[in-house]
């Protein structure tokens, strides 16, 4: 009896292990790709999360609530990996959205890695997304005012 119970336990643990390691669970977005002058730079998202040193709370107009944000100054990240801030960047997101935007030489832009203390996942429009730390007195009821906050960033290319 006790032996069969041990087998059941073992089988349960194996099932749980298989479930956790199944392809569904393994959908991982663990890298951010930077491309600059034809060269690709792969950034490990776990390392980015560890490096995230900017923390603040602000009113997120998309969530309509006050949230705790943690991330990195996007300009500093670009400086560190690209040696400068390109005039225009082309963003590619996990939902196949893509857009080219400029004006990144500004430490107001934060690459968010954590939301309310938790690492961002796709579910929270992660794994990384961009927000403005101080968006002034823009009307938060109109989301059009925040449509350059890029979500679910997968790849960033500098536009020559």
């Amino acid at each position, binding site marked *: 009896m006790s032996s069969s119970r041990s087998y059941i336990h073992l089988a349960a643990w194996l099932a749980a292990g298989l*479930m956790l390691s*199944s*392809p*569904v*669970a393994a*959908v991982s977005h663990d890298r951010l790709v930077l491309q600059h002058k034809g060269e690709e730079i792969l950034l490990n998202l776990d390392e980015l999360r560890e490096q995230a040193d900017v923390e603040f709370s602000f009113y*997120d*107009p*998309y*969530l*309509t*609530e006050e949230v705790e944000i943690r991330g990195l100054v996007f300009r500093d990240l670009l400086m560190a990996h690209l040696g400068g801030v390109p005039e225009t960047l082309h963003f590619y997101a*996990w*939902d196949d*959205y893509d*857009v080219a935007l400029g004006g990144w030489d500004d430490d107001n832009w934060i690459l968010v890695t954590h939301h309310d203390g938790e690492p961002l*996942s*796709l*579910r*929270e*429009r992660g794994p990384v997304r961009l927000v403005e730390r101080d968006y002034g007195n823009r009307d938060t009821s109109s*989301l*059009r005012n*925040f*449509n*350059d*906050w*890029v*979500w*679910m960033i997968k790849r960033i290319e500098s536009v020559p």
Partner: protein
Amino acid sequence: MKRVPHWRRHLGWLWLSLMSFTLLVLLIAYQTRWVYPEIHAYFSQAGNLTGQQLATRSRDYLQKSLDLLLVEPVDEESRHQAHFQLELAYSLFDIGLYRNEYSCTRPSLEALDAMKLQLRSGARVLPEDLRHGLLDPIRCLTEIEMHQLDRRSSVTAAFVEDTRRHQGQVLMGSVVIFFLGLVFWWMHERHRRRAEHATRESLEWMARALSDPLTGVGNRSALHQDVLSCVGQPKGLILVDIDYFKQYNDRLGHPDGDKLLRHLALLIDEALDGQARLYRMGGDEFAALLDCADDDVLAGHCERLVGGLREAALPHPDHPGAAIVTFSVGAARFTAGQTAFDAGYAAADQALYRVKAGGRDGWQVAQVQEVADSSNLNLESS
């Protein structure tokens, strides 16, 4: 009360006019530079994050997920892809606005979470699960889309109405400002023309006030003004007086006397070769003012003048000593200036009277020693 100068009054209208047109240009610049980009920004949302409704994009991912799960067999790859689509759908669905305004949002998000959990667990997905886990959220999203579209339409209509009203106001303002500018410009132009007319009239009156109406030459005031307008310059003054003019008038009448005076003005001008300005000092006395720095030159002018008048041989029936009109001429030099002129005039007058006393029909130049335009003038008559 302090009177505002005329030029300042019409400059005020000019400023108002220029300010009106400047305001008009600023208004047009404002309309072009700020208002139109705002309209453009409002309506040109295609291609950006909120260009397409988040609800629409979320619904697309749910439908893709549904497609994947409806195709048998549902293998691991399909489950993986469906789960990924559900993650994307959830992230676009989990918006504060939707949570706060649409009651179906929270149950739908919970249903999505349950569906993701089911996919991760590997359990078989039944039609009932799809209905609850996907179709209900899709219905919710459709409802949100429709409501948001309605709202967007009403907001757009209000925006268009606002813009139309704003443009109407700007247009009306522009027209008013334009006409105000025109009115101010017209006022400015009217004042300018009035000022010009007044100036012209003043000059005409001044000219009339300085001329002798009978002969057309200058009068005593003109002589003073001309002298004071060339202070410091050496001048010669010649005074001409008709001998026995009273008798001439008594015999021939004043109209003939007037003719003689007019004729005399022409004769003096001719005799001095047009080099002198002529003035009638009153009665039958004329003065000629010319540039002259030397007594001999002045004497030459006097000689030529008297000679010319004698040559004219104007008949005088009642002249006690001759049959023609004779003249007495006295002259003096001076340096232009008020005091020296007074002295020069007195000297020329004295010279004239010496000629009169000496029997008339002659000329004399007074010798003037002067200390530049001072009252210490010593007059020496020759």
